[in-house]
């Protein structure tokens, strides 16, 4: 896959991930700044590095598996590897403008 196609696919994955909402905040994981990195490690294999707003978040498994399902249901992707990290810790400056606006901060 050439670089341009790869970049388009990653954008498509990022957009698709906006369907995964934190049900408490009613805000998607992308605008909340939980997705740290997206890459294609192999042909049709995506790797998502992400965090949660707080360790021990009760929605831990729901959000992580939601991210996995959401990417794996794309026809261009066969497998999604989700890596959950706590460092660097999530902070509000990782949120997008849309995210901050949704929480009344812009």
């Amino acid at each position, binding site marked *: 896959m050439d670089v341009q196609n790869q970049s388009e696919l990653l954008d498509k994955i990022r957009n698709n991930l906006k*369907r*995964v*909402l934190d*049900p*408490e*905040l*009613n805000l998607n994981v992308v605008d909340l700044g939980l997705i740290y990195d997206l890459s294609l490690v192999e042909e049709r294999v995506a790797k998502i*590095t992400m965090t949660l*707003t*707080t*360790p*021990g*978040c*009760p*929605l*831990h*498994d*729901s*959000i*992580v*598996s*939601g*991210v*996995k*399902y*959401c990417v794996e*249901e794309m026809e261009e992707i066969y497998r999604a590897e*989700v*890596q*959950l*990290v*706590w*460092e*660097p810790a999530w*902070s*509000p400056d990782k*949120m997008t403008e849309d995210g*901050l606006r949704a*929480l*009344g*901060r812009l």
Partner: protein
Amino acid sequence: MFMTPQTMGSETNIKLPFSFILFSILAIIVSQLLFLFHGEALINGQFRIPAIWSAAHLFILGWALMIAMGAMYQLVPVAFLTAIWNEKFGFIQFAVTGLGVTSFAITLYVAPHLALIPGLLMLLGILMFLFQMGMTLRKQTKPNILTLFVGTALICLFLTILLGITLVISMKTGFAGEFYPIIFKSHLLLGTAGWFTLLIFGFSYKMAPMFSLSHGYEMKVAKYVYGSYVAGLVFIIASFFLNQGNLQKVGFLLLLIGFSCFLWHIVTIIKKRIKKKLDRPFSFALLAILFGEIIHLLAFIAVMTNHFSSLVGPLMVACLMLWIALSIIGYLYKIVPFLWWTHKYSKIIGKADVPTMKDMINEKLALPLFIGFILGIGIVAFGLVWKVGLLFYIGQITVTIASIVFGMAILAVMKK
């Protein structure tokens, strides 16, 4: 980057917390009805009669304690990142405690002199809970200040129950009869200020930032809250045993300082929030802290002006209802939808559209419900202070209706 396994495996089987919560809904409704039917005694200042004992224990043990236990089965894994030690043991503990509380409340009502055996069954249930929590907290890899708050609260619960059973034995056999008033006062103090207050402090430190999405706040103040409040408890209990009025004054001052530090600390945490508009139920849980502060201030003033013994009844009612119960109801209004949502929708998030937490419970109902509850309690308290029956009944009917509506709102979540 620091990684964790993909699954923490710390989620609790939803049936466990829900068993406690459903039991507690029945208990609050029955207890409020009992208070209503025995209003005459309360208005005349007769708090220590079998029917009121029964109602009070059904409310405190059947409702508040059972809810606290159910909530802890859900919150301990969240706050301490460790799974419950043994879920099966949890279900047995629920059955034993539920049976113990029910039979204890019934026996207190019909034959208080026989309350020892159901009391021991209840004691066994609570000891099983303490054992469960002890084993769970032991697994925590990095204990923190929250562990200290919750751990001390659990010790206070143990002492409260131990003193309570001593009271029942004393009543039956005359054992330690000369210490009865001291044990009784220590039992009340450790139950309300020791167990419930320290528990709410501890979990508020986890839930307040979580529900407001606060970030970048300091936790240093928490140790002063802990130190001052626990020292206050020790001083007051010492004052009971040594019959030293000055120690009691120092103790109540320390409680007030500890509580004020907690209030100030929570305000600083909330100021650092990202979520601008707070949910109503959570706002009421925060309002409960303000009520708690006022109650602690009034208690201190009452002690300093030697009016405490005449005001202790209304102050206890206010503390139980406006601080403890309002905190519990406020947080429960958030926790129950969370539990049910996780049970029903966590597997399909990302696959299909799922409701938000706000869709799970009637939030519009929260405002009239909480206001009704607060007003009802206020009217009951004034009715008791001024000994006006009409005020008491208006307030108590309001609280009873609010309890029924609250129970129905919680049950309605399970239809979503």
